[in-house]
């Protein structure tokens, strides 16, 4: 359904004065900045460091200070980054901009944009489940709430993360007993560190893929406690007994020659998509652990309620379905097409010039 047909409500006019969808991204004309643009722009406000939100090529970036370490790692030394403390406001060309924690990954933030008593919250990606590696999501009251919908179907309901970690520990333990390396696949930014902080590191040695280790450093530098990890490239592959260890790597790492050194492996993936049996089987994983850094259906609905927003803009994911459901509940909702991708089964690429 085209967006024009869904909205057409008077209050939408106000929101659209403040923020519009352009070919380059979500644009605040009054403030002359974009939020998570997908094309290079002059001023980009960034919610978090994942590649579909923080892309290379813009002239200046503004982000929450909690993201400083990881954003620097992802964007490189040359990017012009500046940071703002959470909860503190800054006025840009007359538009007030404030960051609030989003609970998605370390440094992830919601961006609140206000002018003349009207407010919009761009939430980027977010979750409500506990995560020791980042600050919890804070519901922010606003007039228009822009939400992702990656797992916007009622079949997605996350189990308690602790039971997931228990399952991973058991799996690792039983692999050790049968002499198999435990290969755990996860996003190298965010998911990997959340896993590391949640598992029982006393079971055995933990090795990491280079992409993961690079970001582990950023997490540690930001004050997040992670267990001891060793970069796979730092040890002699032939001298190492991998069979007792856990290896954390991005999904693309297996299948190539990189993974050959580990010998007999059990391969598992940690993702919200693992909730569906068909997805698990299609990836021919030995195990699938259900762990997501996005909201499940229940938390999505709860969050929308808590924002008390009059208008809901739904982006990447099952947006048309979520919109239809919200409309049935009597809410003003519309689909907003963006180029965000949410959680995929591949590793998110390095930030790229779109």
């Amino acid at each position, binding site marked *: 359904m085209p967006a024009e047909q869904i909205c057409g409500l008077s209050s939408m006019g106000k929101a659209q004065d403040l923020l519009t969808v352009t070919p380059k991204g979500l644009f605040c004309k009054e403030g002359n900045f974009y939020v998570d643009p997908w094309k290079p722009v002059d001023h980009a406000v960034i919610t978090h460091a994942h590649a579909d939100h923080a892309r290379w090529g813009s002239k200046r970036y503004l982000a929450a200070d909690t993201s400083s370490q990881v954003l620097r790692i992802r964007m490189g030394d040359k990017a012009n980054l500046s940071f703002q403390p959470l909860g503190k406001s800054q006025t840009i060309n007359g538009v007030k901009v404030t960051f609030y924690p989003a609970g998605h990954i370390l440094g992830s933030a919601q961006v609140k944009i206000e002018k003349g008593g009207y407010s919009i919250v761009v939430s980027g990606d977010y979750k409500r489940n506990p995560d020791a590696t980042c600050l919890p999501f804070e519901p922010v009251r606003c007039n228009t709430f822009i939400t992702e919908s990656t797992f916007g179907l*009622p079949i997605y309901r996350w189990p308690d993360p602790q039971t997931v970690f228990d399952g991973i520990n058991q799996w690792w333990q039983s692999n050790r007993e049968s002499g198999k390396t435990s290969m755990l696949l996860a996003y190298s930014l965010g998911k990997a560190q959340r896993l590391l902080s949640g598992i029982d590191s006393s079971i055995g040695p933990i090795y990491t893929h280079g992409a993961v280790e690079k970001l582990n450093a950023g997490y540690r530098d930001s004050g997040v406690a992670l267990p001891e990890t060793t970069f796979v490239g730092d040890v002699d592959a032939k001298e190492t007994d991998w069979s007792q260890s856990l290896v954390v790597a991005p999904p693309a790492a297996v299948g190539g020659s990189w993974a050959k050194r580990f010998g007999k492996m059990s391969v598992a993936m940690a993702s919200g*998509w693992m909730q*569906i*049996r068909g997805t698990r089987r299609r990836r021919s994983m030995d195990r699938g652990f259900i762990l997501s850094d996005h909201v499940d259906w229940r938390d999505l609905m709860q969050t929308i309620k808590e924002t008390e927003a009059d208008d809901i803009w739904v982006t990447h994911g099952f947006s048309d379905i979520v919109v239809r459901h919200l409309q049935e509940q009597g809410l003003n909702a519309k689909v907003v097409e963006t180029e965000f991708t949410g959680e995929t089964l591949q590793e998110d690429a390095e930030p790229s010039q779109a």
Partner: protein
Amino acid sequence: MKDFCELYWRLDSTTKTTEKVAALKAYFDVATPSNAIWAIHFLNGNRIKRLVNTRLLREWAIAEANVSAWLFEECYDRVGDLAETISLILPPKQTVKDVVEISLKDIVEQHLIPVRELEPEQQRENVVQLWQGFDQRQRFVLGKLIMGGFRVGVSKRLVVRALATHVGIDAATITHRLMGQWEPTAEFYAELVDPNETETAISKPYPFFLANPLKQEPESLGDAEDWIAEWKWDGIRAQVIRRAGETFIWSRGEDLVTDQFPEVAAAASRLADGTVLDGEILGWDESQDRPLEFSQLQRRLGRKKVGKKLLTEVPVVMLAFDLLEHQGSDIRDKTIVQRQEHLGEVIKLLQPAAKVSEGVFNAKGNDAPVAIRKPPSVSAKPVSSWADLAAVRETSKELRAEGLMLKQRESAYQVGRPVGDWWKWKVDPYTVDAVLIYAQRGHGRRANLYSDYTFAVWKDGELVTFAKAYSGLTDAEIRKVDKFVRKNTNEKFGPVRSVTPELVFELAFENIQRSSRHKSGIAVRFPRISRWREDKKPADADKLDTILAMLD
């Protein structure tokens, strides 16, 4: 029930045969006979028939989950499996009362089967109560018990192997005992695992011996003279049993089809007691002395009763190519040459010279040939070289055969699909280059990918759809096509997307027939994608006329 659910998910979590067998064996080691036999029942793909209407299950789940019906359907579209969709969408486990401690046997016999007799409202209460006491994974297994369709990558062969190791008797014996119809009772389980020879029920078929496709050159099989060549028919593989004055016809899927083929049953009634034949049932065109098209035979399938008109229009015969039991003895260990000698004697006694006895139903009257006969031989004169056989094979389509069967002369009648002694050497299937024009999400393993495709060929400058196919591509190729579909969608019709005609695939079929029911005028059998023709453009795809020409 808890143990069985755990077994299910253990089986589901591995693709390795040894690990599956180990999981099954571990289950049998601790399960009581009455639970074990129900487990075997379900793992073998059996279900409890007509338990609860799936439409009602859907409605109850929608009500319990408090979602709109359309939202449920959207979820189902993504998950691709009804039992799984229901298990996921229901609110979390509610009752403290541990329903899951109830044994598999009691769940089935006391909580599920009695539900059949209840009014829908009471049915709902019972099912919802079970749902509330189970977690998501247990509900999924429960759903499979109710709706069938386990598909956990466990073949009958694996169940048998695990059971054989568990009790320490030979797998072929267990396979045989598991054939045909049996009741999932502790008594039957005791017979199944009895280390002594037991008397088998008179209806019990033997496990079928299945052939492997010949992919290598036939020369690799050695001397052609060591092999028997037969036509490979496109019909219904069946076993005809005559014991104790009764006749049983079993299909390969182990369905009892005696009543569907009264001609064959009538002919079989004149077999001596203690006779079991293996062969192919085909619709038969007496005037041309060759099979009718498979689509004709299809009209005879799945009916409770076959009407007179159909019997006249599509008479069937059984071409018997093997004899498994002769004069009351199991002769499967004899060589095929010896078995076929005995078969010749058995068939001879059935021939019209012996006069069709009264009461025997025959569509064409009593002077017509009997419906059980020897298959036509592949050549009038003995064929002794692979080159000669290859030439014979090329003529398969004249007889509506799919190619040749090659059977090693010294071979015994074995169980299952062992490699080496029986080969099917099919003629190349028909192939067509076609353009992808619609895509739909797959089911099960492919639920999140656009993996079900509709293809079109050219007719008067337009693309007309003529076949659907979903198998044949690698997972990597499917992902690539999926990406293409998402980027090139023109329109959405529910779950179906029309895409820009750009990709060309070579499709293979077992058969192509004219059909007035299809817009394209043709109907295809077993369509599959043989390869992605990335070298071809849509304009290079085949024309409908070219396909029609293949038929003439």
